[in-house]
Every structure is written in C-alpha cells, then in structure tokens.
C-alpha cells in the first residue's frame, strides 16, 4: 500500500535518513520506533510530502509519489501537539479538509459529527480549540485528519505531549479505532509500550535506517542485533565464540542454592525483576512472578533454559 524504498534525506549535509525501507500493507498499522534523531519523524514527513527525499522512492499503491505535493497525496497526518488552527472552532478545524476538497456543506456537517463521535468528542463542534485539554486537542487533530477519509493515516508521536491517565485512555481508544476502521496507519513513537500496543508490526529505526520490522512477538523473540535488543530493554547479552547471544530474562531460572548473588529485586506490577551477579562476575537479569522471590543479598542457584537463548545476527528482513 505505502512503501519507502532506499529513501535518503540530509539536512544541511547531516543525514536524517540513509536508505530507509518500509512497507505498510493495506489495513495494517506499522509502529515506527526509534530513539530521537533516528529519522522516524523525517520518514513520516517524506511519506506526507512535506520533505522531499534526496534519493529513493515513495510509492502509494503502484504510484510513485515523486513530484506529488502534500496537498494532492490524500495522506492524513496527526502532528505531535495537534497543530490545530487557532482561529477556527472545532467544527471548522475538522471540516477543513472536506471544505478544501469542495464537499457540500450538509455532507460536511454530517461527516464532522461522525468523526467527532468516532474520537469521543460528539457535540464539541462549537468549542474554541483554545478551551480544549491536551487530550481533547489530540482527538480533534485525529478527527481532522480522519474526516477527508485519507488512504493512509500518519501519526507523529500523537501522545507525546500527554501524560498520566489521559495518555492511557487515548492509547486504548486509538487501538480500538485502528482495528475498527481497518486503517492503514504509520504510527511514530519513541515509546516501546505504545509501539507494541498499537503496531501490527513494529519497525525499529536507527541512524536513518529501519533495522528491523516485525510483529511485536517476533521482534521480542528475535531482535535483529544487539543494539535492537538493548533498545528494547534487554540487557542479558553475552559473547560466545564470536557469536552474540541474548538470554531472555524469563529464561533465567532462579532457585535456592549457590552460584550467584541477588544484587537487587524490583517489583513492577505483577513482575519482579532480579539483578544477579554470577560468581564468575557476569551480571544477568531475571524476571519472576513469585511473591516469595529472593531478596537482595541472598545466594541463589541459576539455570538457563536453552529455549530462551537467542542468537543475534543480521537484521531480519521485513516479512512482506
């Protein structure tokens, strides 16, 4: 459906994208995950037509988008903190794309009400955008992008400026909306939880390239390389005979005995993370759900489940 091939962009000689590849299937949500400066927002702006690539191609369906300006692409974009038009009320913000497309005003009104209901803001038409909370502004921005029925919806860290329960609520609503509307969407974020919650597949970006694009379980099971594993929060890496091995923390089995010392035990919700130091000096992380887990300072025996040891290698090609 939407595809970037070998896209390269540099700003004042500094590369932002260096041969980025990404393919998004019809009705699929791809979360683009990466640290700041990895080029994920630039990739989104290339898709939208706001940044012209120095090299490479962007295809929508079979059509090459080179030379197609942003306003003729039919691709919607939700900006990080909304970018709502301050001089228009909610209805006139949401109706903007329809009006530009020349949709008749009665049809417009109906469509605005429809998308506002969709994002949970039914009846907000007359509100001034400056009176809305951050979460409501993001919902209006989403409604505005959805109203013209774009072929692809792009979202640039839409939850970036929110926090706490608002963020959780909107995240859940977005997931439900994506599934219900079968949207083709690209969701840029630096938050692993968001990416895993929303993406049918997650594309991990680093230094202007997509290093791996896979379903969340696959990504978690087989990170492409050590950097990706570490970025995803995995710390148990070891080198053995020239190979990089990852030991999944749930594969580190702990029982009373000797061979290692518990350095720290930290509970987060149902899961307890244990930091262990083997007598050989190596540090490992283990997770458990037990209430009577070992405490800091206790001696334990450590066993590794071979099924949880993954060999890291070259990036896994996107399975499209």
């Amino acid at each position, binding site marked *: 459906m939407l595809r970037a091939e070998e896209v390269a962009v540099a700003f004042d000689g500094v590369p932002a994208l260096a041969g980025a590849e990404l393919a998004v299937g019809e009705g699929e949500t791809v979360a683009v995950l990466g640290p700041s400066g990895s080029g994920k927002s630039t990739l989104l702006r290339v898709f*939208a*037509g*706001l940044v012209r690539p120095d090299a490479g191609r962007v295809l929508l369906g079979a059509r090459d988008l080179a030379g197609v*300006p*942003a*306003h*003729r*692409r*039919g*691709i*919607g*974009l939700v*900006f990080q903190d909304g*970018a*709502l*038009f*301050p*001089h228009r009320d909610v209805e006139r913000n949401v109706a*903007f*794309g329809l009006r*530009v*497309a020349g949709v008749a005003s009665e049809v417009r009104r109906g469509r605005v009400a429809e998308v506002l209901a969709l994002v949970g803001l039914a009846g907000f038409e007359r509100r001034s955008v400056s009176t809305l909370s951050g979460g409501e502004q993001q919902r209006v921005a989403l409604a*505005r*992008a959805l109203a*013209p029925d774009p072929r692809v919806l792009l979202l640039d860290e839409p939850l970036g400026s929110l926090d706490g329960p608002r963020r959780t609520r909107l995240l859940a609503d977005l997931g439900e909306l994506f599934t219900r509307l079968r949207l083709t969407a690209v969701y840029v974020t630096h938050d692993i939880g968001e990416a895993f919650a929303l993406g049918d597949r997650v594309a991990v970006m680093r230094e202007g390239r997509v290093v791996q694009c896979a379903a969340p379980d696959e990504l978690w099971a087989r990170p492409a390389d050590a950097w990706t594993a570490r970025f995803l929060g995995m710390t148990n890496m070891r080198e053995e005979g020239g190979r990089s091995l990852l030991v999944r923390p749930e594969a580190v089995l702990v029982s009373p005995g000797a061979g290692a010392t518990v350095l720290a035990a930290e509970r987060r919700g149902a899961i307890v993370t244990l930091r262990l130091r083997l007598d050989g000096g190596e540090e490992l992380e283990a997770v458990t759900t037990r209430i009577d887990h070992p405490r800091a300072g206790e001696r334990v025996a450590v066993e590794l489940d071979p099924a949880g040891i993954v060999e890291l290698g070259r990036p896994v090609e996107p399975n499209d």
Partner: protein
Amino acid sequence: MDRHRAALSAAVALPVGFFALFFVYPLAAILHRGLSGSELPLDVLTSRRTLDVLWFTLWQAAVSTALTLALGLPLAWALARFRFRGRALAQALVVVPFVLPTVVVASAFLALLPEGLERGLPAILAAHVFFNIAVVVRIVGGFWAGIDPRLWEAAATLGAGPAARLREVTLPVLGPALAAAGALAFLFSFSSFGAVLILGGPGRATLETEIYNQAARAFDLRAAAALSLLQLACIFALLAVTGRLERRLGGPRRLAAERDLLRRPRGRERLLLTGVLGAGAIGLGLPLAALVERSLATPAGYGLAFYRALGEETPALLVEPWRAAVNSLVFAALATALALVVGGLVAWVAARPRAVWVDRLAMLPLGVSAVMLGFGFVIAFDDPPLEFRRSAWLIPVAQALVAAPFVVRIVAPALRSIDERLREAAAVLGASPARVWREVDLPLALRALGVAAGFAFAISLGEFGATVFIARSDRPTVPVAIFRFLSRPGALNAGEAAALSVVLMAMTAVAVLAADRIAVRRGTL
C-alpha cells in the same frame, strides 16, 4: 513555472518597484543636484550659516535629550515599579503625545506658553520633551520593570540604603536602557521639523527646517540639496549608534519579565508616587487642555465661533478650512491602503526564513526624514516623463512611504510567529499553497494588519514634513492648513489653528484607539 514562485516574484517586484521609484529615485535626485553642478557644494557646507544651524541642531537635541531623561525617569519609575488603580490607563496616556501630529503639539505649546515665551528655544525644548517622554517611559520603564528585585534585596542586606541602591544598582543596571532611550530621543529631537518650524521663530533653525527654508522660501535648491546630504550623513551616523545601543538591550529584560514584580507603594513612596503622577498628568495634560481652551476662547467669551469659522472662506487658504479635513481623510485612507499593500507584501517576503535583510531595507525610509522625501519628490518629479509633482496622488504616496516601515514592523513578526506546522497541516489536508496562504496566513495576520492600518492612518493624518512640500494650496491637508494659519498674525487665525488642531487630535485619537482596541481585543502587541 511554479505558480508559487511566480506569486513570490510578483510580491517582491511590486514593493521593490514602489521603493525604487518613490524613494531611491528622489534621493538620487537630491544627490545629483547636490553633488554634480559646477562645483562641490563646499561653500554651502562650510558657510557660517550652515555651521550655526548644525551647532544649534546638535545642542538643542542634546539639551532636549537631557531634559527628557531627567523628567521621564521619575515617570518610568512610577509606572514600572508600582501597582495602583489606573496604572494601565496612565501607561496608555503617556504614549498619547508621541502619536500626536507635530503640528498639533506645536500649536498646543503656542496656546500654553505665555506671550514672549511661546516662540523660541524654551518652546522647542518643551515640545521635544513632551514628545519624547513616551520613549523614555516605554524603553526605560519596560527595562526597569524587568529588574529582579532580589538585586535590591541583596544590596540592602549588604548595607546599601535607598540612595546607594539607586546609585550602585538601579542606574548601572538601567544603563543600556537609558542609553538606548537617550539615543532615540536625541535622534527625534535632531530631526524634528514641525515643532521647530512653528515654535522656532525667525532666528532658530535646525538642519531640517533649513532644508525647507532654502528649498521652499529661498528657492536655492542646490543649498537645500547640500544640506540634505549633511542631514543624511548625520542621521545615518545616529541610526548606527542607536541600533547598536538598542541591540545591547535584552538580557535582564527577559530575565524577570514574566513574573509580576509590581507592588503597592508603601509609606513615603505613596507621597512620592502621587507627586510624580500628578506632575506627569499636569505636564502632559496642560498643553492639550490649553489647546482646547484656546480653540474655545473667542474674543466674545467661550464659544464655538472658531469652529464655525472653519466652514467659511479665509485669506490663509484658498479653500474653506473644513475641506482640509476631507482632504486629510481621503489622502490618509489612500495612503493606508497603499502602505498596507506595500508593507504587507514586504512583511510577507521578510517573514520567510533567510529573508531578514528585507525588513532591514524596508526600514530605510525611517532613516531618511520626511522633509528630505518631500524635497526629493519636488526635484525628482519636476520634468517629463515623471512630471507629477503637482499631482494630488503624490501626497498619499509620500505618506505611505512614511507609514510602510511601521506596517512591516507590526505585520512581519505576526507572520513569523505562525507555526509552520499549521501550514503543513493545511497542506496535508489538501490545501494548495495559495489556499494555505488564504486560509492560514491571512486570517492569522489579520489582526496585525488591523493594528497596522490604524497606525498607518494616524501617521498619514499627521504627516507634515513631506506633505508641506507637495500639497498644493488649493488642496491642503489639516497639518498644512494649521501651519498656514499659524504663519499669519491675528486672533482669528490663531483660534482657527487651535480649532483645526483639536479636530486633528480627535481624528488621530480615533484612529489610534481603533488600532489599540483591535490589539487589546485580540490580546497582542
């Protein structure tokens, strides 16, 4: 060809053509007249008369500046440090003299000062202080209000009393603001025209009035051109100094500007504050009150006779005086429209990234005095094919040139502050570049355009220096008509001048208030 690029080229070409024809060309004509000819105008520049005029211009500006600073500082202190009822109103009123036409201020001081003192040095100095006190209050006061009070607290804990704190903390910290305000007041007093022409009397001339005298009274165009060159050199030197001093402002102002540092006056401060504000109200209000009084004080007691006389023929003008008001309104409206189009386009181009130099260029007419502009028009547009020095439309063109820099100054920042992502959002939603401009840029800049329109209108209404050169006797503007009345003796002429001045003051006030309301309602400026 990219349509967007074509539009941009047109947006650049129109103001460039306008400034080239009506600004650069007249200046070039002055240069040509002054520098070519049979010999260099050294005789004019080194004559006793010129040196006297230059010397007087300099020292009256210096004295005006010193007086303005001395009298403005207490007001700046009162308005910058304390919270009291009517503070916002007081702040707004202090600026009123600055936007009043020079001719109105001059005739106000003629009405106020006792016989024998009403023309001459004291009157000139008084008018300059009256004008420029707003500059000191706004610049120094704005800076003062931003000083972190902990500086004084620290000084106090180290043993500094009130006088020591003023000497050791306040004045040094205010230094850059005092320098910048002083430089501006000096520049304005140096290039003051209307006030000196009317209040100076026969013996007192500054460079500006001398240019006018040579060109319009002695018809020595070569001398006028030579003096213009001297004036131009002085003004550019002054502008360079002012610009440098203004750039030094900044740091401390931002430091604490967001915090509300105003407090209620305590103890003896209350008395001092009352005294300062009272003196300010009298000093700034009395001339205007005297003007209104003079316009009503007919030989047969108070009445509207002078206003009624504005409808009748007079030997001072070729037309009934009320027609001057109509002329002024029409010219000012045309000038405003022109200034908005030209200034708006310049602002649009200047607001684009990497185009800051554009609004620097657009500021140039500010540096060249209106008198020089008028004089330039007279000699530049005197021969075919550009022979239109007697065309009425030249007046709004001149006024628009004077007003356009202000339009750029108001509109460009507004355009620059528009979030680029709004334009992107509109584009992504399907709006073409032209549509983005219409749907995003224009509505968001509209309030700034409204404010700019008000100021452009007020400036055009009061414009005197250029207009006095090119206004024909049968089509005077109000400032020109006031000047003609004031040049003639007699109580009736003085009364009609006062009445017309009151009318002009009212028209200006309406324009500025309308602009101010737009600014306040939309919460900007």
